[in-house]
């Protein structure tokens, strides 16, 4: 199979070339599909991305390691905390730094909240685009409860910049357990409603089942990860395969599908939200007391009291801010489980205070690469559901 070459059209049928996008009302995200159609059937599709390219990797090379955290938020803006955590873990691996236990638990809690918001965005939009507008808005309502939690944790809903090298910015609010209990109860109620509205809904099922199928061997070859791969039946989840943070202490399952079609992708994401809520409950129950930042003046800013009252603190602060953290020279690839799959950071340091190279492996980039394979032979309306289930996030896919 050569993906960009065209299948020869039937000699009798007229092939229509159609461009869909880059800004199409039925597709969220700026992306263009160059289609070749036989009637409404897709003969071939060339997916054109890059409309949201902001030079993430080039920008990262300009500042210090700390300057990357705000950029990392804006990669996948449906789950900014997961990107934050992924980048922090990669730099910490490179620096040989470990966050204190409490910070690790906090990262797990924040990350899993973000995973649910990511899935809710994806599924809500998927429902919305198929005409199930109520279910779509129910999911957005559920997302609001979670955004309130994110706001309580770090003061921002979307642009969190919450992680630091060696820990997190602030501690959880004192009533976090209670807030979470209330929020998750709302979310569970709403998800129950959505399940009843969608999972056995005739129209919804007809539009999703058997569409965008990809066998598991192809999915692996295309580099698909996350819900897209698990929907084909491969139980690969970085949290289980290479447990990071405190995921090895959590009891959770990896939902998998069987056929790898859009319906399975939908159901895998749906089931994953329940698993994420289980993780949040367990992490809050186990949450140990203690510091939230590592005690390492090479990488961690001193507390403000020291900066303003002692010369050592002031100098330490000045050096870290002006010169950056001197992460030892070397390179590292660290994979974490993002909302859409394996979110990898490949970092190269030359020992100065600035990153030499920051490479992000965006999971949905590889999903979009496989989109042509998923769509060939389907109808033009199936683009919407399949594209929706890949959950392309422009900021991440286009760097």
């Amino acid at each position: 199979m050569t993906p960009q070459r065209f299948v020869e059209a039937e000699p009798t049928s007229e092939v229509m070339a159609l461009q869909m996008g880059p800004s199409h009302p039925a597709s969220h995200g700026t992306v263009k599909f160059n289609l070749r159609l036989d009637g409404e059937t897709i003969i071939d599709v060339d997916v054109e991305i890059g409309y949201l390219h902001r030079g993430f990797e080039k920008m990262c090379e300009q500042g210090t390691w700390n300057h990357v955290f705000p950029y990392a938020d804006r990669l996948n803006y449906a789950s900014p905390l997961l990107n934050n955590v992924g980048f922090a873990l990669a730099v910490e691996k490179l620096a040989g730094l470990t966050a204190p236990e409490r910070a690790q638990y906090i990262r797990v809690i924040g990350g899993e909240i973000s995973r649910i918001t990511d899935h809710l965005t994806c599924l809500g939009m998927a429902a919305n685009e198929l005409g199930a507008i109520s279910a779509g808005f129910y999911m957005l309502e559920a997302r609001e409860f979670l955004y309130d939690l994110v706001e309580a944790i770090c003061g921002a809903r979307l642009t969190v910049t919450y992680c630091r090298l060696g820990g997190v910015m602030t501690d959880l609010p004192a009533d976090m357990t209670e807030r979470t209990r209330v929020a998750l109860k709302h979310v569970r109620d709403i998800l129950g409603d959505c399940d009843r509205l969608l999972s056995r809904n005739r129209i919804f099922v007809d539009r999703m089942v058997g569409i965008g199928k990809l066998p598991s061997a192809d999915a692996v070859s295309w580099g698909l990860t996350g819900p897209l791969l698990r929907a084909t039946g491969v139980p690969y989840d970085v949290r289980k395969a290479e447990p990071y943070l405190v995921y090895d202490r959590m009891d959770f399952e990896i939902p998998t599908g069987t056929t790898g079609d859009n319906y399975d992708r939908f159901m895998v994401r749906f089931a994953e939200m329940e698993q994420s809520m289980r993780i949040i409950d367990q992490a809050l129950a186990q949450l140990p007391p203690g510091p939230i930042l590592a005690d390492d003046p090479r990488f961690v800013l001193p507390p403000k009291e020291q900066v303003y009252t002692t010369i050592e603190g002031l100098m330490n602060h000045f050096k870290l801010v002006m010169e950056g953290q001197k992460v030892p020279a070397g390179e590292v690839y660290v994979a974490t489980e993002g909302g859409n799959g394996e979110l990898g950071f490949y970092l190269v340091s030359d020992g100065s205070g600035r990153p030499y190279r920051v490479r992000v492996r965006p999971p949905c980039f590889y999903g979009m690469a496989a989109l042509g394979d998923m769509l060939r032979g389907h109808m033009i309306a199936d683009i919407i559901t399949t594209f929706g289930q890949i959950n392309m996030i422009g900021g991440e896919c286009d760097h």
Partner: protein
Amino acid sequence: MRGQAVADLERTLMRDALAALRDHPDVRLEMLSDLTAVDYLGRVPRFEVVYQLYSIARNHRLRVKVAVPEEDPVVSSVSSLWKSAIWAERETWDMFGIRFTGHPDLRRILMYPEFEGYPLRKDYPLLRRQPLVAERDPLERPWFPRP
């Protein structure tokens, strides 16, 4: 390197070696997680193409690096081994100007066709402006490459 397995491969041998790594029953690196390049400006050879391989069956990773000289930035494509390389190699071509021989469709992917230079090279200035691009006439310059 930091507890991670890294292998340096010769440019001439690397495609056969990667095929062996994918297919050998003890290694089975069946997924190419990521492919990118690093520009070590001032070093000889200047570029390094980096392959992040992962085995789902064996749950291990390997990073393979291939040095590429500046005068002849060409590597064999691995897109026939892993489909994920199709777009990843396009991106590496787009950002670093490293060509992949045997790639079915090596076009720019994030940038537009008229873009000049390779933005992630270290000698590409951050604030360089690009010339304006004339409007494309869809009949004269179709979006699709004609078969």
